[in-house]
């Protein structure tokens, strides 16, 4: 039997517009327009045609569209060629493809070196 709260992927298609807080315990894929806040404990995928005017919180994220807002990602964040991000980024790992646009501050979690771990 499936466990409670084991939700499927949330998909916001290109024709959909959301105003408010989109929160999910599963993966989220956005191709539409969202303003407000997006929060998931799993992965977030923003498609190339998406327009986001919201703060984003996710475990990992791949951004291909336009985001105006702060992005907080525990794990890795990847900005694709089509991405346009205006806002601050906080993440564990960051990848930026050539052609993407990013304007804001970036703060990454410090990677502990082996020497530090031994100490």
């Amino acid at each position: 039997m499936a466990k409670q709260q084991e939700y499927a992927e949330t998909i916001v298609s290109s024709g959909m517009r959301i105003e408010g807080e989109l929160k999910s315990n599963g993966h989220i894929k956005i191709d539409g327009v969202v303003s407000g806040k997006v929060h998931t404990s799993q992965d977030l995928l923003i498609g190339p045609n998406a327009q986001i005017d919201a703060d984003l919180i996710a475990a990992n994220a791949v951004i291909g569209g336009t985001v105006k807002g702060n992005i907080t990602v525990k794990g890795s964040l990847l900005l694709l060629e089509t991405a346009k991000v205006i806002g601050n980024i906080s993440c564990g790992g960051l990848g930026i493809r050539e052609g993407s646009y990013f304007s804001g501050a970036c703060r990454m979690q410090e990677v502990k070196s082996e020497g530090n771990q031994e100490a």
Partner: protein
Amino acid sequence: MYYYIVDPQKLSQREFERVQNHLHSSLSEYRISGEIVRVTGLRTVNQLVDNAFLHGAKTIVAVGSDDTLHDVINAVKGRETVIGFIPIMDTEIGEILGIRNINHAAKTIASRLIADLDLGSVNNNYFFSKLSFGLGMGATNSKMNLFNFRLIRSLFHLPQFEVKFSADHRYVATVKVVGGAIINARGNNCGHGHISNPTDGVADVVLLSKLPKFQTLKYRGEILSGCFDQIPQASVVHLRKLEIIAPQGLPLRVGSRVIAKTPAVIQIIPRALKIIVGRDRKF
């Protein structure tokens, strides 16, 4: 005590007699005999369910189609009882609950494996499976001939309308669609394990926007069977409660029956249905 509410629906008298004989022999075989009553024009499911409570029935069994089960669930209206289901034809809910036919259903009822399942409610009407809207005015059906030219042409010209709904009091969504479904539980024909679990406490809302002609042709099977989530351009969200604000007067169907019109408040009531399920259930 078992109380069987038999709804012959569109069966001919001859077919119904055959079903009745089969039912009697199966109930005797598994020692679950009880009072058997038949729905007629003068004795509605509501009246029969009230009678069942007056007679002190502990288990009320709907014998008929998915509509019969929905009628019984609505007539019970949250009162304490266990519900059973004996499908007399191929039904989606029978498949969800793991009940195949009369004999198998009798065996399932005798084994009394009771599950607490979620129920959907729309403007105080309950539904167990899914609520659908749009796609012209007709109900979708996967058994239609997919190569029928008229059918394909009608899919190309499906009317589009804008749906606006508030979701869990968190956000408001607007999307132009040709159809959609609010799913609590569904059969296996769509083959997606995560959607449609009637124990997860949420409704899966699937909305289909108008597709280009080639995509419509490619996904006509999914469109007609209501498996919108299998189409890449569909939106899928998971909610406990939603209110469809616009358009006004949009018919909301369970199967082919219209049970409400928008504006409508739709919510999932967790574990509100005590029902006997089979070992082959789909959740």
